């Protein structure tokens, strides 16, 4: 609103001045805002409606600092009359608080008033209108194009690659900055992210949203986009490194000499307005930078070097410092510094006597968007296996320092902890806990009284599960198994003998059956032959002879001539050749004699 009002006043003043004297150039000044805080700046503009040949004096006010930050040229059309104007833009910075009167730039102009309030106290000088001062717009800072950077042929853009060092090592991370300067109105768009022209380098952690600033370079407004990243080197060698950015720029379609508007105003607005430019895609490349990449030296490389390159320091601690056997402790190692933290690694403590160690976990804290500097913390759980005052050895971390060009090993001090015996270890006859201070606790009230000590055993494992006791039932089982086998063998022998008897009995029964059959048939020869066949095995068994050896003469020699058995053998021989006949009574008699012999275990 204030700007509109000021513009309207300016135009009104122009019209009044034009009617008053058309020949006199009109010069007027404005200041925005008219009220600021100490430490802020205001924009003071002197506009000359004319050919701009009249000299303009920069005002001098005690307590105010005036700096020219830019010049503009415009064309205004008033009542059909083209009126060019030139403006000088200055930054006004107050040195002290107060009310300042800026003298008129021409004798006919009015002086301007600037109110500067003290920022700390917050007490502002009352403004006549009672309205607060608006926030001042950003003011472009002036400057020239960075050294070693060249603009494109049409002056629309440039790219600058900033590498802080010329010699690096393979694996090292180097923070770099890529700045793209685009002249306002000349660049239509950016068509991609910046990239390096050499494939042997990579850009890590490249920010997707570049930092944006505006700057006057050689008096022309430029938009500056700045990307930050870390450069990673893949292989050794000498390289010419540059960065490129794809842009779409607006180029002239007519020679510069034929563009009167451009000659007159030099402003792209007029070129666009009259169709004097067309878009064109180009790649803007930064000037090449020589970079030498070295291999890491093999000499002096520590065993625990994991590829960390940079400048680091370490510190360690353990918590808690008092614990029981079996309680987990946490050992921490903090590595701070700058470098390639992705290669910062450590196995910390490993294979310690009387300690059980676990693999460490790591976390990285940084406020650096590139993760180039910060602190990496390793946490390792450890468990003490024995009581006493224990000392954890100092931790080490090895890295390569590119500044000193050698391997370094950072060391931390040993850590001391106090380990007390575990509460649960009651195997070794623990001392009963003190009860003096805890007699009031809820567990003590209803307990039954203690017992008198009795004999002890060496283990709580049930006796039948103890290996040395298991020998006893094993021996018992083996002994009784052996006894059972012995008894069974003895019984088996008796059963063999009785089995033989049973077999002989069966043969005798068969012989008796044959004899009975022969008696019924009246065949004396068959009768006596069956009788002799039945008696021969029996007698052979008794006399320890072969059955064939049991003849009439043998029987006679052993039992005498009058024995029934001898007579039976003799009758058997006789009946075989004589065909002697027997009556039923004789058959029955000799059958009884044979049966008696077969059933008796005595010698005939």
């Amino acid at each position, binding site marked *: 609103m204030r700007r509109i009002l000021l513009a309207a006043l300016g135009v009104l003043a122009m019209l009044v001045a034009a009617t008053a004297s058309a020949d006199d150039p009109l010069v007027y000044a404005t200041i925005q805002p008219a009220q600021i805080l100490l430490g802020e700046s205001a924009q003071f503009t002197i506009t000359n409606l004319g050919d701009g040949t009249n000299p303009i004096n920069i005002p001098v006010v005690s307590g105010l600092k005036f700096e020219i930050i830019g010049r503009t040229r415009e064309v205004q059309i008033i009542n059909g009359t083209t009126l060019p104007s030139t403006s000088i833009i200055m930054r006004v910075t107050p040195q002290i608080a107060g009310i300042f009167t800026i003298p008129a730039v021409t004798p006919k102009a009015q002086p301007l008033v600037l109110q500067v309030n003290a920022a700390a106290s917050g007490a502002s000088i009352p403004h006549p209108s009672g309205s607060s001062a608006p926030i001042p717009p950003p003011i472009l800072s002036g400057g020239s194009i960075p050294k070693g950077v060249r603009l494109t042929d049409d002056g629309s853009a440039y790219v600058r690659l900033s590498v802080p060092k010329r010699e690096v090592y393979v694996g090292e991370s180097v923070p770099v900055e890529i700045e793209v300067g685009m002249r306002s109105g000349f660049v239509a768009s950016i068509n991609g992210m910046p990239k390096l022209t050499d494939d042997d380098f990579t850009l890590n952690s490249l920010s997707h949203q570049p930092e944006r600033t505006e700057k006057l370079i050689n008096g022309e407004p430029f938009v500056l986009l700045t990307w930050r990243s870390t450069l990673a080197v893949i292989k050794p060698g000498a390289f010419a490194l540059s960065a490129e950015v794809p842009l779409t720029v607006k180029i002239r379609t007519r020679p510069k000499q034929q563009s009167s508007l451009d000659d007159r105003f030099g402003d792209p607005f007029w070129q666009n307005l009259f169709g004097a430019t067309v878009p064109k895609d180009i790649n803007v490349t930064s000037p090449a930078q020589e970079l030498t990449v070295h291999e890491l030296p093999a000499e002096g490389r520590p065993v625990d070097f994991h590829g960390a390159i940079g400048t680091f320091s370490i510190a360690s601690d353990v918590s808690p410092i008092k614990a029981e056997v079996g309680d987990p402790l946490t050992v921490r190692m903090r590595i701070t510094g700058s470098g390639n933290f992705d290669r910062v690694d450590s196995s910390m403590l490993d294979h310690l006597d009387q300690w059980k160690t676990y693999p460490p976990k790591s976390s990285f804290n940084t406020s650096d968007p590139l993760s180039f500097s910060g602190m990496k913390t390793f946490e390792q759980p450890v468990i003490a296996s024995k009581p006493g005052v224990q000392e954890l050895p100092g931790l080490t971390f090895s890295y390569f320092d590119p500044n000193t060009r050698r391997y370094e090993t950072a060391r931390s001090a040993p850590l001391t902890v106090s380990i007390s015996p575990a509460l*649960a270890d*009651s195997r070794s006859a623990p001392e009963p806990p003190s009860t003096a201070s805890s007699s009031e606790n809820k*567990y003590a009230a209803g307990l*039954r009284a203690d017992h008198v000590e009795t004999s002890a055993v060496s283990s709580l*494992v*049930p006796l039948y599960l103890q290996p040395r006791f298991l020998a006893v039932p094993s*021996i018992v089982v083996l002994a009784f198994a052996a006894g059972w086998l012995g008894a069974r063998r*003895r*019984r088996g022998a008796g059963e063999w003998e009785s089995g033989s008897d049973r077999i002989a009995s069966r043969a005798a029964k068969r012989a008796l059956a044959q004899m009975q059959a022969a008696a019924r048939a009246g065949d004396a020869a068959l009768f006596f032959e069956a009788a002799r066949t039945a008696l021969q095995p029996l007698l052979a068994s008794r006399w320890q002879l072969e059955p064939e050896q049991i003849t009439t003469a043998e029987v006679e020699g052993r039992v005498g001539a009058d024995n029934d058995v001898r007579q039976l053998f003799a009758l058997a021989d006789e009946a075989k050749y004589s065909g002697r006949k027997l009556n039923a009574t004789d058959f029955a008699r000799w059958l009884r004699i044979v049966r008696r012999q077969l059933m008796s275990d005595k010698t005939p």
Partner: protein
Amino acid sequence: MRAAWVFCLLLGTLAAYSASEPEGYSAARLYNLANSYARAGKPGMAILNYERASLLSPNDPDVQANLRYVRASAHLPAETPDTFERVATVASPFWVSWMGVLGLMLVGASVILAQLSSRHRLLRAAVTLLGVSMVVLTLCNALALWPRLHQGVVIAAGTPVRVSPVPMGDPLFTLPEGEKVKISAEHEGFALIETRAGRSGWIADSNFAPIMPR
């Protein structure tokens, strides 16, 4: 002759096992230790030592009474043994072990006598039945005590049960001090436990103690 040799061997072994060991475990010592822990306000260690005392003297009324009392005071649910457990633990494992050996001897003698003679069949049958009963009692005692041999007692209040056997493992739930848990596996200073409710997870060795000392 052979039977006499076996008998002498058994007598010698029994005498050796009956000899007292001053630095070992005894039911009275464990019971008194448990009482001390209970008076000191450490229910976990008290319950642990009552459980250990009950292994040596399962029918000691004082041990059982104090165990129930401390469990109730620690707001732990009461444990009531079933009939099988009561019968199987009618005697201490020490005497049950020797009863088993005696049962084996009775059965063996009966079997051998049956091989040698067929007389006194009823007497032999009675002896065999008695011996088998003794052996069965020993086996039942082992079956009843077997789960307790693989159990532990939580000795720290609010013990975290973790999802993995590492100190930084995510906690699943916590166990109260004095809770009895089943130990399923062990790994690197941690034990995989299972609660009566069937929940399982890993707890640090320092937070529990097995009923059967290692």
